[in-house]
């Protein structure tokens, strides 16, 4: 899931670098304030551990494929979110410099997708709230696996948004989304299973390690309603704003294509693979016009293309918005149901 320099525009890469750098500065400052000098060697060695552990594979039963650990959530559980964020970010930096995984501009995106989202967002707002102080077996499984699925889905969604907003790839938003999210659902489930297995191993062997992280003073929580409102606002802004932005992207393309190719319908737009995929999408998409169609508006005469582009843009923004709200609703209701369910199951134990 590493993002790559080649797919990024400087604006998007720079903006996300700014967010990641802000995260690094904030976490470093917090770590300095805590002044726990045991933390420094521990983080360094665990970073090296994570780097090496990512190279071990295991076979996923029944599929023949293999998986490995990504580790953001695992480190957050063991070290707490601040230290985990810095540790995963440092591992990503080593990978960017030694293995050129992604690249230096994309490093900002990778830190955002693979470190900031799991360690700072999902761990803080989901895992910590729902895991409780002495989780039972089922609760631990459910919360950890859900958390890692959410983290992976958000990370994959961020990759899609970053790519589409950059406009280097011409993969349409919805199709890229359809490609990425299911794959990362599977990856998230595997990641969750590994995380749970390692955490329960540590819990059996040295339970005091986990007590440290969970028992660490939590960041003061705002009320649940305000957190939900915050998430809703972020989701709405991202969906509305960015899909508008994404559908504005082909403008440059329209010009260049109109200049080079003239007002002729590109041959074969409705045939071959394109036609097949279009037909497939016709069948599968119940929210039509989620994607922008560059080939259609590109060949419109100049006078109507502005209007068509605008209509397309608002349509995209609307369907992006609706889709996000639906997803968010599904995730929230699943979390709520899960919480109810796990509370009912765990109650006798506690």
């Amino acid at each position, binding site marked *: *899931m590493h*993002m*790559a*320099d*080649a*797919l*990024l525009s*400087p604006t998007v*890469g720079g903006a996300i670098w700014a967010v990641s750098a802000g995260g*690094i500065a904030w976490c*470093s400052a917090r*770590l*300095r304030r805590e002044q726990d000098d*045991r933390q*420094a*060697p*521990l983080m*360094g*060695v*665990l*970073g*090296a*551990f994570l*780097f*090496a*552990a990512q*190279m*071990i594979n295991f076979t996923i*039963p029944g599929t023949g494929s293999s998986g490995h650990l990504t580790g953001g959530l695992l480190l957050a559980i063991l070290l707490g979110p601040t230290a985990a964020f*810095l*540790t995963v*970010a440092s591992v990503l*930096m*080593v990978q*960017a*410099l*030694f*293995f*050129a*995984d*992604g*690249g*230096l501009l994309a490093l900002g995106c990778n830190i955002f997708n693979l470190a900031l989202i799991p360690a700072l967002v999902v761990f803080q707002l989901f895992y910590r709230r729902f895991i409780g102080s002495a989780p039972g077996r089922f609760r631990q499984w459910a919360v950890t696996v859900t958390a890692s699925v959410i983290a992976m889905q958000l990370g994959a969604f961020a*990759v899609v948004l970053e790519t589409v907003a950059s406009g*280097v*790839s*011409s993969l349409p938003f919805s199709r890229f989304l359809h490609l990425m999210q299911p794959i990362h659902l599977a990856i998230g489930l595997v990641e969750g299973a*590994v995380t749970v*297995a*390692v955490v329960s*191993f540590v819990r059996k*062997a040295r339970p005091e390690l986990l007590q440290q992280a969970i028992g660490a003073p939590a960041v003061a929580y705002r009320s649940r309603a305000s957190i939900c409102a915050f998430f809703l606002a972020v989701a709405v802004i991202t969906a509305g704003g960015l899909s508008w932005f994404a559908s504005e992207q082909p403008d*440059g393309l329209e010009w260049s*294509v109109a200049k*080079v*190719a003239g007002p002729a319908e*590109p*041959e074969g737009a409705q045939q071959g*693979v394109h036609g097949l995929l279009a037909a497939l999408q016709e069948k599968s998409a119940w929210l039509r016009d989620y994607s922008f169609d560059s*080939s259609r508006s590109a060949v419109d005469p100049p006078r109507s293309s502005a209007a068509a582009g605008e209509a397309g843009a608002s349509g995209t923004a609307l369907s992006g918005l609706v889709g996000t709200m639906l997803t968010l609703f599904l995730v929230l209701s699943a979390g709520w149901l899960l919480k109810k369910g796990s509370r009912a199951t765990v109650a006798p134990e506690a």
Partner: protein
Amino acid sequence: MASINQALLDLKRLDQLAAGGTVLHRLDPRAKVLATLVFIVSVVSFGRYELSALIPFLFFPAFLIALGQLPAGYLVAKAALVCPLAVAVGMFNPFFDRSVLMQLGPLDITGGWISFASIVLRTALTVGAALTLTALTGFPAICRALERLGMPRAFAMQLLFLYRYLFVLSEEVGRASRARELRSFGRNGDGLKSYASLLGHLLLRTWQRAERMHMAMLARGFSGVLPGREGSRFGAPEFAFLFFWSALCVTLRLNNAPQLLGALVTGQLP
């Protein structure tokens, strides 16, 4: 597992290249880091159908590899192997972007193919620049350069600690992983169960190592900062290096050099 040890060897080889003694190795790391950043931003700021204007940018990694006496074949092979996402995503461009941009005789070249080629070329350039930077400078020097350029100290220390234990732990994990592989027969024994307990054991061992390290550091009077070499000076050669490459990147970004050259050769100056 062969791949872990292979990756480790690869890592060590790249790391050892930084021990070279050429003029470029001796430059202050900050100049190299900044020049690489200017280069990468210039490369990615091109429009998506740009191909010819990107070619002259190959000069930067080529020059550094040649003057820094780096093994070109090794770095090129390394750069060719990476970025599966970029190529995987770029591969879809020819399917979705079928507007004809160029005609070579009977052959229609669509925008998708051009942008795909552009993505591949960008990947090669950015990845090549990053690898060259590492090979010329070395990881600790890059960290210290970034720290002097304003990176928070806690993060710099984290990077230096990580680097120190990278090799030790990778070797340990490689040994453990090979041991598991030798003991598993066919598909038996390489599933999640043994994987989780392997990782768990390695994790606990790592944790104990960290506790020992902490005690050893305290015994030696650790003050919270890793001592490093005295910082080098950002002098005239560094300024010249940075200025030259920035000016070249900006010039090449603003002018399509191959097109100008072509116009000059064919005598069709606009």
